[in-house]
């Protein structure tokens, strides 16, 4: 692993990573990006199972996607929650995800762009 030896190198590394993909996942990616919120409350409600299910099913169904684990977003009432970013689209957060729901999300939203019930609307702004 490379050691960062100067602030310039840090910048270069960031640009390199950003070139590979966009950190907040908006649009520039050509792959579907799925974040499985796996903090304590997510895990307690079964986020691990959902992570495994989604990874496996996407592979089975030949969908090119990146699935990552992140911390929780604070939607503890609706865990497990996942966030799906389709290429060129704003991220959408789905709550109360079980295997059935995950299947529906893959079939309806990821494959066809149709929304699925259980969306948690974005009600916050963040800083860049």
């Amino acid at each position, binding site marked *: *692993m*490379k*050691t*960062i*030896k*100067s*602030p310039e*190198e*840090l*910048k270069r*590394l*960031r640009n390199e*990573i*950003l070139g590979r*993909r966009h*950190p*907040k*996942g908006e649009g520039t990616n050509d792959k579907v990006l799925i*974040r499985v*919120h796996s*903090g*304590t*409350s997510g*895990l307690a409600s079964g986020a691990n199972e959902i992570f495994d299910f989604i990874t496996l099913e996407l592979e089975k169904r030949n969908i090119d996607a990146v699935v*990552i*684990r*992140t*911390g*929780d*977003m*604070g*939607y*503890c*009432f*609706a865990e497990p*929650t996942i*966030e799906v970013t*389709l*290429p*060129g*689209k704003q991220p959408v957060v789905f*709550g109360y995800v079980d295997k059935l729901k995950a299947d529906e999300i893959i079939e309806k939203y990821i494959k*066809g*762009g*149709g*929304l*699925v*019930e*259980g*969306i*948690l*609307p*974005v*009600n*916050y*702004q*963040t*800083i*860049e």
Partner: protein
Amino acid sequence: MSQYRMQIMVCSGTGCSNLNSEAIFDNLQLEIEAFALENEIQVVRTGCFGLCGLGPVVRVMPGEVIYTRVTPDDAAEIVTEHVLKGRKVERLLHKDPVSRKILSTEPELSPFKKQLRIVLRNCGIIDPENIEEAIAANGYEALAKALTELTPDDAIKIIKDSGLRGRGGGGFPTGLKWEIARNNQAEEKYVVCNADEGDPGAFMDRSVLEGDPHAVLEAMAICGYCIGAGKGLIYIRAEYPLAVARLKTAISQAREYGLLGNNIMGTGFNFDIEIKYGAGAFVCGEETALIHSMEGLRGEPTVKPPFPAESGFRGKPTNVNNVETFACISPVILKGADWFRSIGTEKSKGTKVFALAGKINNVGLVEVPMGTTLREVIFEIGGGIRDGKKFKAAQTGGPSGGCLTEKHLDTPIDFDNLVAAGSMMGSGGLIVMDEDDCMVSVAKFFLEFTVEESCGKCSPCRIGNKRLHELLEHITKGKGTPADLDRLRNMSKVIKDTSLCGLGQSSPNPVLSTLDNFIEEYVSHVTVKKCPAGQCRDLMEYFIIEANCVGCTACARVCPVNAITGVRKEPHVINPEICIKCGACKEKCKFDAIIIH
């Protein structure tokens, strides 16, 4: 990619559902089908928009148009006007209550996004176990800026000017704290991150550490640079295994990338971080007790001064900050003091994360600018009270805080306003109580916690709190007298005035604040021996309404002590002498014949 031209989202959160959003959904669906548009337009139910005060809410995409206070009859107009003709239904757009002007429907400018995430900026977005994700999200950029462009004094000045105050509860200005630590000369100094989150119901520090550990590591390094420390310590409770694991991963990755350790980014600055485990004692959130615990001593507080900034860990100048405070540092350094100052109220800048718990629909974390009102937090972002019950109080500041009542709903939340209202910010736990909660029991619950968590070093806290708890126990059992209320108040004041550390000095707050705000409940407990909320078991009396009872015998059969007698098909009676008030009969009764007095 989308096969739909337009999507209509109908809020089906609890608030909107109670206002019949389901009928709106049905009507929209019917209208769409009437025009045979179901393959082009999708109608879908969504979770809470956090706009419960304006519900039911319908949002149309693309364009992100949000309609508020929609009725089922409006469905036709939305479809014919908006969907068919592409014209917004002006009548239903959200208007400013005063000027009647239509507020912007642009998502970024809209008033709908009450939350502003600075501390939680990366939580749920980046992979906490991959440092590259943190770097891509501007991680360690602020450290690079501080090390190369700023002197320690410059950096401290930015923090001071930003008005950032400690988020752990006290609200002490962070920049000032750093300056004091910087000015104390010593060969060795320490930066300590207080991750001993002990307030019942607060979990924002855990979420930050689990979701964005690098934010904390980076800020600790910046602090080390500012005060002249080479070593950082994170004091975290062992009950947070996931946070500990992610911190460990983050620290080792940061070392690998040369962002911690010797000669960071080639600037000659050395800083490393070590994790210290706490056993989950509440008092160890107090900085002197925390330091003793890290030294391997008993987690007991000592008198300040000397403050840790003079003589802390191993007798060296030590700067202790809370996780949430550290999480604010990088954005402040990068975006500047003026930016941070522009958010919040006059004396409290920036945002605050609240952990919503209790009888609220959207349990979870929210981050709002200081100065947001309690009403906005509870009824809009939090989705209101569960089961449509009535709001009674919100406890802030955990066992050291007090309760806020209906009259405080429109007070802008900041450090000083909360203190003025008889509570405190604390670490940001917000426990919501509804009409079914007995405030005497609430005070008793918090006292139980402090009795358990008192370290026992000073007698006012060790003995006083125990006595306070006994008095409350007495009252909830129906054995209290009006004189007990004065005793409660006096004893609370003495404990507050004479305790050694913050734990004892604030532990009677829940008692005092419930006495101030809900005196009638206390009076009712000690005079007529009734609990108005019907929660104190010893003060309840179960009673069968003759007119409703059909004599099905279900209650008599379920009663574990045979307190219910009666002839089949005739009204039954409960013998209060035998009844143990378990409530089994009430649960069993299908005819609502059993009530609690």
